[in-house]
Structures are given as C-alpha cells and as structure tokens.
C-alpha cells in the first residue's frame, strides 16, 4: 500500500484508536527521530524496516502518549523506513518516513578510475566514477553537481556532471600523445585526490633495422649486433619500453636463425655470433602481429683459406691445424671441427671438437677402431677435406 502514492504515508489498520503525533515524515540522516503516538493501548511495540535490516522497539510512555526513539543505526542511514505498530502480533498502525542524505555534513568522495592505463590516439578511454556521500556514508541526493577535471600536457578540461543513481561519471579519452593524464573531481567543496592515468603509445608502425659488426669475416667468434630504428606509433609516440622485437635471419642454406631484444626508448637490439664459414644473411625484425622492419642483407667472407691435417702416432692421432684466421693470425679458441669416420664405405662415428691454441686433435682409439683401412672426412670453417684408405 506504500506504493499507491506518496500522499499516503501512514494509516491505522485495526480498530484501536491511535493517532500519530509526529507530523514530520522527512528527516535528514543523523537527525533524532522520535515517533509519538496517542493511544489508550500502551502494550505496543514498533517494528521498523530500513535499508539494512529490521528492529522491534519497546515503547516509552509519556502521559497518554507512547513514544519510540528510532535507534542511531537506522536514523543515520538514508532511505525509506517503514514502521508498523504491533499489538499482540497484530499490526495496529503503519507508516513510512523518509531519511535523506545530510547535505550539511562534509561530503566524502570515493572515486574509481579504470582502466588505469589506455593507449594514445583518442579512441581508447578510461572512466572516472565518483560516489559522493555525506559523512554518514549515505550517497548524496541525485542531481548533485560534480566537477570533473582532467589535465594532459597543456590541456585542462573541466565538466559538470549531475549525480544519478548515487554516482557521477565521465569518460576520459586519450590524446594523440602518450604520457600521463591527471584527473580529479570536486563535490560540494570537497576535492578528491589526484588520480593518474597512463597513456601508452598506440601500436607500433613498420620500422627500419641496421647492424654493427667488428669485421665482415665469418670467424665464428665476433658478434654482430642488429639495431632497430626508434620504433614509433602512428602518432609519433615512441612505443613502450619492453616491447619484444624478434630478429629473423635466413642464411644461404635457407635455415632460420633467431634472436630477440626488448625496446628501450624505442630501440631494440639483437645479437648473433658470426658464422664460421662464408655465408649470406637476410635479416628482418618483427613485433609479432603488429609491425615489421625492412630487410637487411649481410655477407660474411671466408676467414680461413685452408688448414693442414697431419696423421701421427701410426695414424691414430689426427692433428688439424694450425688454424689461421683472416690475417694469418692463430684462430681464437673455440672453432668447431668435426671428424667423420668411415670403414669400408660404412659410416661409423662423428667426433666434434673445438680448437685450442689453433689446433684440434682427434684420437682414433685402438680399443674402438681395430687395425684396418679407414676413410676420414675433416670439416670446419667452411672447409672440407677427405682422406681415403688410411691404414691404422
């Protein structure tokens, strides 16, 4: 029956003469609310139902009247409070009062901003939602004006929103530049704190790559560094640090080598060891699914023209070397040489060793390789040598 109309706020329901003396039906949160009834029947209690719960109150007698003091935890909360005067489980009178937010108290603000970071370009946006409350934690009345402010570089914007459904809210769109938007709001003279929204650059656009190396020889020892240009988005913002860039290298045989790096100030670096034989590399970098680079072509020249192979110790020790690099200097340690062993045309084993002081020694052990005729293939640094019918 409450729903019938705003004008019907209270009525007696059973034939016990009861008059409500309290005429006020709208109270501010925090007000003292006392309901006074005139009735002959004093054995009554007051049931009340409010936003967060119910209670049943004992009457205080005051001459011919009974009075009920609504407890603080009800009077401080905004909302409709229905009450029923109960006599021996029967409702003898019912009514409703309305408690509104107390605009005289200091307004408190609860602000939610999200998402906390957005991308540049003006398409992406974040949202600032503020719930202004009175000091009893009641949402303020609808249509309270809320100043929404945000600043970016030289731009400062201020709009006025009116609260509805307890909240005020605003969409904040990004600008073309990346950076940081600062936002705040203000209601009834209470200002919120400062909120920051990170505007990250938008997606990268295609970029260039370059390389640095100490020399152009395929010595299997030095390192080639690939560097991107400063990668930017379509609005000229440098892309976010830490963006992963993958460098794909296709060599002369069509094999793929891969290295990667993450950007710092828009530049990513990837490193690869020089090949140990003459080769040609086609290099291209990708930010997977987003952007790609120009293609780079590199040539590595042969660094070692030839090396000697000596069979010693009744041919059971094969000494490769001295290995010499492009200036005739001794090859730095670590050059890889392999030795393939065949007997009567049948492949037996591959021995792989790295050089030390310019030499590699392969020992063909008696225990494994009984006396007989063997073929050996020595490979490394792009050089192939074959020795047939070596008798052990």
């Amino acid at each position, binding site marked *: 029956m*409450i*729903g*019938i109309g*705003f004008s019907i706020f209270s009525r007696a329901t059973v034939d016990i003469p009861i008059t409500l003396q309290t005429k006020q039906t709208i109270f501010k949160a925090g007000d003292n609310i006392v309901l006074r009834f005139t009735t002959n029947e004093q054995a009554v*209690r007051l*049931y009340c*139902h*409010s*936003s*967060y*719960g*119910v*209670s*049943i109150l*004992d009457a205080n007698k005051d001459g011919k009247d009974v009075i009920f003091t609504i*407890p*603080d*935890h009800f009077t401080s*909360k*905004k*909302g*409709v*409070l*229905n009450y*029923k005067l*109960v006599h021996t*489980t029967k*409702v003898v009178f019912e009514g*409703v009062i*309305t408690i509104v937010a107390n605009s005289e108290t200091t307004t408190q603000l609860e602000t*939610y*901003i*999200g*998402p906390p970071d957005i991308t540049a370009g003006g398409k992406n*946006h*974040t*949202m600032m*939602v503020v*719930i202004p*409350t009175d000091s009893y*934690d*009641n*949402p303020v009345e609808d249509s309270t004006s809320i100043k929404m402010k945000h600043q970016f570089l030289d731009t400062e914007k201020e709009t006025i929103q009116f609260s509805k*459904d*307890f*909240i005020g*809210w605003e*969409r904040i769109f990004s600008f073309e530049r990346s950076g940081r938007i600062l936002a705040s709001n203000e209601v009834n003279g209470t200002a919120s704190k400062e909120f920051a929204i990170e505007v990250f650059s938008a997606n990268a656009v295609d970029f260039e790559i370059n390389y640095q190396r100490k020399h152009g020889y395929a010595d299997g020892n030095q390192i080639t560094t690939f560097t991107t240009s400063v990668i930017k988005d379509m609005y000229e913002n440098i892309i976010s640090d830490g963006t992963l860039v993958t460098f794909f290298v296709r060599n002369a045989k069509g094999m793929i080598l891969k290295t990667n790096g993450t950007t710092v100030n828009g530049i990513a670096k990837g490193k690869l060891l020089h090949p140990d034989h003459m080769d040609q590399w086609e290099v291209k970098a990708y930010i997977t699914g987003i952007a790609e680079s120009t293609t780079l072509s590199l040539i590595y020249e042969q660094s070692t023209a030839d090396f000697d192979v000596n069979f010693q110790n009744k041919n059971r020790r094969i000494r490769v070397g001295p290995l010499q690099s492009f200036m005739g200097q001794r090859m730095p340690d670590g050059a890889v040489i392999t030795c393939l062993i065949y007997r009567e045309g049948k492949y037996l084993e591959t021995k792989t060793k790295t050089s030390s002081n310019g030499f590699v020694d392969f020992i063909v052990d008696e225990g494994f390789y009984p006396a007989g005729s063997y073929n050996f293939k020595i490979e490394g640094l792009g050089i192939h040598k074959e020795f047939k019918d070596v008798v052990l």
Partner: protein
Amino acid sequence: MTKSLKNKNLYRTLIIASFIALNIGILFGISQVLLYLNTGADRSSILHLSVQNEEVYLPKVIWQDTTNPGRPITRHTLEMIQSDYLKAWYVRNVAYMSNDPYGIDDFYTESARENIYKTIASHVSANIQVSATTLCHHLSLDFYSEDGQLAVFTDVNTKQYQRVYKDNVLELEHQIEASYKVVVLLEDGFWKVRHMVKELNPVIKDTISPYETPLITVKQNKIYIGENLFKMKGINYYPQQTPWDMFGDAFDIDIISEDFTIIKEAGLNTIRVFVQYEDFGKAKVKSEKIEKLQQVLDLAEVRGLKVIVTLFDFYGNYDVLDWTMTHRHAEQIVSYFKEHRAILAWDIKNEPNLDFENRGKITVLAWLREMIIQIKQYDPNHLVTIGWSDIESALLLEDQIDLVSFHYYQGLESFEEKYGSLITKTNKPIILQEFGLSSNQGLWNPFGASEESQAIYYENFQQILKKNDVHYLTWTLYDFENVPTEVSGSMPWQKDKQKYFGFIGINGNRKKAFKFISE
C-alpha cells in the same frame, strides 16, 4: 595356599589391566594433542570456495533491463552479480537469524558491513531474532563501469517474508515489499554490496496474466472440468513393486499402464500420485524425473483418469531459509505441467499437520501459505489442495486452497456426523483424500481386520459416500511386500499394517474388498 594364588592372580590382572588402561590413556592424550594441532582454518578456505559454490538461496530473479549508459554487460558478469547479490541477502538473513555475522565480510564492503554489525549488536542487546527470506527480485541495471569493477542496479518490489521474535516470543509475522538501489563493487573476486538504499516501491503491473478460462474450476462446492461437473471417484496409487518410489530406477510404464486399465475398468476416474522432493532433485529438478511424470500423466489422459499430484513428499524442513529452494522445485514441476489436461489438482503436501509438533505450526503453515501462492502463480489452470491427515485439520488455510482435502482412518460410525459438520463450515468442494482398512490379521496383529471385514468396511463406507455424494480416493490399489521404514515406522507390526491396505493382494489376486472399490 589357594588364597594367595588367587590374590596373586588378582594382582596380576590388576597390573595388566592398569597397564593397558595407562596405554590407552597415553594414546588418547597424544591423539588429542595431534588433533588440536591439526585444527584451524583449512587452507582452501582462503579461496572462499564453500561459500561460492553452494546453492542455498534461490529466490526468483527477473532482470527487467540491462541496458545502461556505462558499458554493455555480458551475461556471465550479470550472473556473477546476481549470484553474489543473492548471497548477500542470504548471509544477511542467516546473520539476523543467528545474530552471528558469519559470511557478511564476503558480500559487503568494509563500510557497508558496519551497518549489519550495528544491527546485529542491537538485536543481541534487545534479544531480537529475525527469520527472513526474500521471495523474488526484479532487477534492472542502472550502470556498469568501463573497467567492470562497479555496478549500480535497482531491485524493485522485492517480496520479503519475515518473522520477528523478541525475547523468543513471536512479535510479528508478515510479508512486505521493498525496493532498493544497490551499488556493488568487485573486490577479491566477490561482488560486494557497497551501498544499499531502500526506496519507495514503484507501482508495477502484475506480470502474470491469469488464464481467462482455467482448465479446472470450482463453483460453489462443485468441481468443473471445462463445463462439465466432475464427481471424483478415485484411488491413491503406487505400483505394487515400487511403493513410495514410483519414479525410481524400477519405473515401468507398462506396469502402470496395466494398473490404469484396472483402475478405469473398476469404475474410478481419479488417481493420486506422489512426487518425492529429494528424489526429484530438490531445487534442481532432474529432467528424467519430469519425463517419467510426463509419461504417467500422458497415460492417465489417454485412459481418461484425472490425477492429483502430491508434491513435497518426504520433505520436512520448512525452514524460512529453505523456502526459496522449495519454490524453485515447485516452479520447475508446476510450470512444466501447467497445461496438462490430466492434472486435476496440485496437492501441496501430504499430511503436513503431522509436522506441527516437530517443526512448529507457525513455521509449517507459513511455508504452505507461501507455497500455495507460488504454485498458483506458475499454474493458474489447476486446483490446489493440501492433504490434511485428519478431518479436524481440514479447514486449515481453507481460504487459500481450492479443494478441502482430509484423510480419514477413524471409526466408520462417526464419519457422517463429522463430515456433515465440516460441510457447513466451508463452501469449497471437500475431498476424502485417503481412507481404507488394512486386512492385516496375522501374527503381529491377531485382532486386526480380515479380508472379509475389510470388504464389509468398504461396502458400508461406499454406501455412506454415495448417500452424502462425497468425492473420495481410497487407500490403496495394492498390498505391498515391502514398505519403507520412513513411511510406516520400523516395528514389524507397524510395517505389517501398511502392507495390507490394498484391494489386490501380494499374489496379484483381487481381494474381497475389490468389489467395493467403487460405488
């Protein structure tokens, strides 16, 4: 010499016994220490899984509108908000019933839960307890934020049932409608209530349009099927092999079909069957059970039999916090069969007055009262009744039901007088929903009725029924070999009695009373 030997043995026994006792004591002590060290919060409780997964509160929820100026909401998010909002109501109802804030933290934010704590504190000091449940929620979304962390919605005309106790005395029992505007925040994976403000109820028009012409109607004290006056001559039915488990694994529609032929050929036009609450799946009714019930009802329609379906058999909780679960149970069954032409009436519960003593009359009646409303809401086509166990209880809730039903196992001689008196007190049709006599003369009951006296009983009763034009249903078609303990009690003489109420014996032969199965 013998004496000292005896003493020696005695001492030896004492020493061994005390040694064993000591060991038991030590082991018990150690186990208690270990047990103590193992108690405490289970680590999985950090995840709040128990609260999240249990379905304990299912009031009807209708989303009226989800368009909002913030951002479109997905169905999944909406379900999460709804689920947590209902749980917020549930934990609040539990908290006000027990005056213990258990679970409030999970569904109210730090500021909002203060309000609940204060209310609980005031209830504790004034010794107030509130048993409450909400029955339906009409939600509309007002706002959903861009980051998906905040939502505002309105819950209008929430129906709430409350019983308020002060000093353990019932002070007020009532139903109210209230509307709320609610702000919820997503915190720690829970949609928690941040603000909840009660508002004035808007006037909403009733969304359920009653049928213009229900299938079954009651005018004065007469039952009409369509335009035709209906006189009920019926029987309570269970298949012989599966009493009190009609829709179980041994369900066999062929047997039921044969039985329906027997019933129809005997001149009867109505059967009463029972739907067990747990067997049918409680709040989530199992589809296979619905299918079985459908087969039975379809068959009854073909055979020209009307069916009274008794719901909530073996249900006995009635607790306010369990209401919504039973409402969902009823909704699923009743709304599914609301158009079915075989059904005459929904019998809400068999003999609920027998639960008054254990569950409290107020509790049971309040549950029934609301259940009548729920069932009528989902099925305005069929009648509603309650099968009271004796004629003295027949008029309980008389103003809300369509048919007054009672069971009669008292003396034949006083029936006419009691029935005559009942007729004067109501203008609704009265159904003698169960009556009968067990022919259980035998080892456990040497003075019980024989098959002859059972036949005589029915012969006489049928005359009285015919004379007074009573709607009746006999108990029951078959003698049963096995009767569940829950039905009869565990004692052999109790079980024995329940076995021999039938018109057809365990061997399948028609007993002498069969002649009088119908007038």
